[in-house]
C-alpha cells in the first residue's frame, strides 16, 4: 500500500486536474453554483432546527457554550460532507469508466480525486458555520482547534470509504442501494442533531458499544467540542474513532488493490 501511495503522490498533478475538473463542472454558473452550496446546508439546518430543536425540545438538550442551532450546524456541515461523499463514492469509477480504460495512472487517483473535490466543497460551505456561530451566540476559544482535527480524521475515513465503495460497487451491484439506506440510518445513529450523552444515559449497554463503533461518533464529538467544550470525546471513544478511520483506510485500499483487475475488466 505504501508503494501505491507513493505512486499516487507522483501523479498528484493528475489528481489536481481531476479535482479541478469536478469543481469546475459543479460551479460552472459560478455565482449561482456557489449559492446552492450554501443554501442546501442552510435550508437543512433550518428544518432540523425546527423539528428537533423547537418541536421535540432539543433546545433544552444543548450543552453550555451556545444555542442549539450552533450545536446542530457545527456537526451538520460535516455530516453533509460525509453524506454526499459516501453517496457519490459508489460512482467514482463507474462515472469515468472510459477515461480509466484508456489512461494508465494509478487507478486510486480517480476515487481519491473525487474525495478531494468533496473536501473543497466542504470548505466552501463553512461560511454557513460562521453565520450560525454569530446567530447562535458562539464563543471563540482555543478549543476551536478540534474542528480541523476532526476534519483530518474525516479525510482519512472518507478516503478509505471512497476507495472501498467505488471498487466494490463495480463487482457487487447492490452496494449503491444499500448505501442509501445505510446513510439514512447513520444519520440518526450519529450525534448530529442530539448530544452524545443522551445515548450514553438512555441506551442499553450493548447498544452503546455498537453505537461507538461508528467512527463518525468520535469525529462529530470533536466538531461539537470546538464550540461546546463539554462535548470533548472520552479518550476511549477518541482512540476507537482514530483506529476506526485508519482501519477503514487500510482495508479500503487493500480491497481496491485486490479488486482492481476484476474492476478493470468490468468497466
Amino acid at each position, binding site marked *: 500500500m505504501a508503494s501505491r501511495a507513493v505512486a499516487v503522490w507522483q501523479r498528484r498533478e493528475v489528481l489536481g486536474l481531476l479535482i479541478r475538473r469536478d469543481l469546475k463542472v459543479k460551479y460552472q454558473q459560478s455565482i449561482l453554483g456557489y449559492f446552492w452550496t450554501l443554501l442546501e446546508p442552510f435550508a437543512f439546518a433550518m428544518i432540523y432546527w425546527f423539528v428537533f430543536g423547537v418541536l421535540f425540545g432539543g433546545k433544552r438538550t444543548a450543552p453550555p457554550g451556545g444555542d442549539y442551532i450552533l450545536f446542530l450546524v457545527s456537526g451538520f456541515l460535516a455530516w453533509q460532507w460525509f453524506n454526499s461523499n459516501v453517496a457519490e463514492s459508489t460512482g467514482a469509477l463507474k462515472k469515468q469508466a472510459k*477515461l*480509466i480504460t484508456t489512461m494508465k495512472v494509478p487507478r486510486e487517483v480517480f476515487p481519491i480525486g473525487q474525495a478531494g473535490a468533496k473536501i473543497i466543497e466542504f470548505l466552501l460551505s463553512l461560511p454557513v458555520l460562521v453565520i450560525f456561530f454569530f446567530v447562535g451566540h458562539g464563543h471563540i476559544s482555543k478549543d476551536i482547534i478540534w474542528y480541523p482535527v476532526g476534519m483530518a480524521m474525516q479525510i482519512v475515513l472518507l478516503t478509505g470509504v471512497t476507495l472501498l465503495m467505488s471498487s466494490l460497487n463495480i463487482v457487487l451491484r447492490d452496494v449503491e442501494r444499500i448505501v442509501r439506506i445505510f446513510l439514512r440510518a447513520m444519520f440518526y445513529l450519529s450525534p448530529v442533531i442530539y448530544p452524545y450523552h443522551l445515548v450514553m444515559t438512555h441506551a442499553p449497554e450493548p447498544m452503546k458499544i455498537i453505537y461507538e463503533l461508528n467512527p463518525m461518533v468520535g469525529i462529530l464529538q470533536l466538531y461539537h467540542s470546538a464550540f461546546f467544550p463539554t462535548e470533548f470525546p472520552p479518550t476511549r471513544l477518541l482512540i476507537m474513532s482514530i483506529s476506526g478511520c485508519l482501519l477503514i483506510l487500510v482495508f479500503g485500499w487493500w480491497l481496491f488493490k485486490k479488486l482492481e483487475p476484476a474492476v478493470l475488466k468490468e468497466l
Partner: protein
Amino acid sequence: MAEPIIKARNLGIKFARTRRRKLSVRELVISRGKRRPQGEFWPLRGISFDIRPGEAVGVVGRNGTGKSTLLKLIAGVLIPDEGSVTVDGKVAPLLELRAGFNEELTGRENVYLLASLHGMKNSEIDKRFDEIVEFAEVKDFIDTPLRHYSSGMKVRLGFAVIAQLSHPVLLVDEVLAVGDKQFKKKCYATIEKMLADGRTLLLVSHNERDLERFCTRGLYIREGKMVVDGTLAEAMDAYNKDTDGPPAGKPGARKPGAKKPAAKKPAAAKGPAAKPAAEKPSGDGQAAAEQDEISSAGSAGKK
C-alpha cells in the same frame, strides 16, 4: 538490434463467460455455488512477442479474438492474469478518442484537461493549442460546451490532442474508421509523420489498405492464440485463408450466411460449454455484428 520497447511474455487474461458477471447479493446469499458463472474463457493466452522501437505492427483477427484486449494490456489499462507485458516508455492511446472529455466543459477546457491528463505541460499546450484546434477544425466552437459538439467533432478533437503527445508508443484501435474522408486523410498523414519520427505503432484494423499503408509486421490472432507473427503479408494471407475459405463473406449474402460463422465456429469465443447458446438476446446481436464484420472485411479484401 535495438532492445525491444514492448515485451510480452506468455501473456494471458481471462474473463468470466457470462456477460453479466456482476454478482448481486441475492446470488451470493441464495444460490451459493449453484448457478456459478459457467466457467471462464481466455480471450488471450500464451501470447509472447517483442516489438522493437520504430516497428509498425498490424494486428489482425476476427472480432472477439482479443485484439483490443491486447492493446489494452499493452496500454496498461487491463491487468493480465498470466504472464506479463512491459513497455519501455509512455504510451499514446488512440483507443477511444472521446475518453476523458467532459460534456459540460468547453472545447478549450477539454483540450487542456485531456492534454494535461496525458502529461503535457501547460506551456506546451499553450504553444500547440492553435495547431490542435486547426487540426480538429473546431475553431468556431472552441468555447462552446462539448455537449453541443457533434460526435465527429469530439473524435477529431480527441485525435488532435493525442496526436500532439510525444510518447514513443502509439496504439491505434480502429479509430481510423471514423471521421469523413478528408479528416481520415489528415490522420493518415499524422500517423505517417509519427512513424517517420521513429515511433512505434500497433494498429488494430480490419481495413487491409490501412494495414498495408503503415505496417511492415503483422500479428494474426485467432481464438486468443498467436497464429502468425511475421510480415504483414504473411499474417494477412493466413487471416484471409481462414475467413475466405468457406464462403463467408459474399456481399449481399448476409441473411442466409447469418448462421454460418456461429455454427462453423463453436470454439474458443463461444466455448465448448456454451450449450444454452440462445439464452440471451445479446448473443444473437453479437453474431450478427461478427457477420457484418466478416462481410466487410471480405469485400475489402476483394477490392
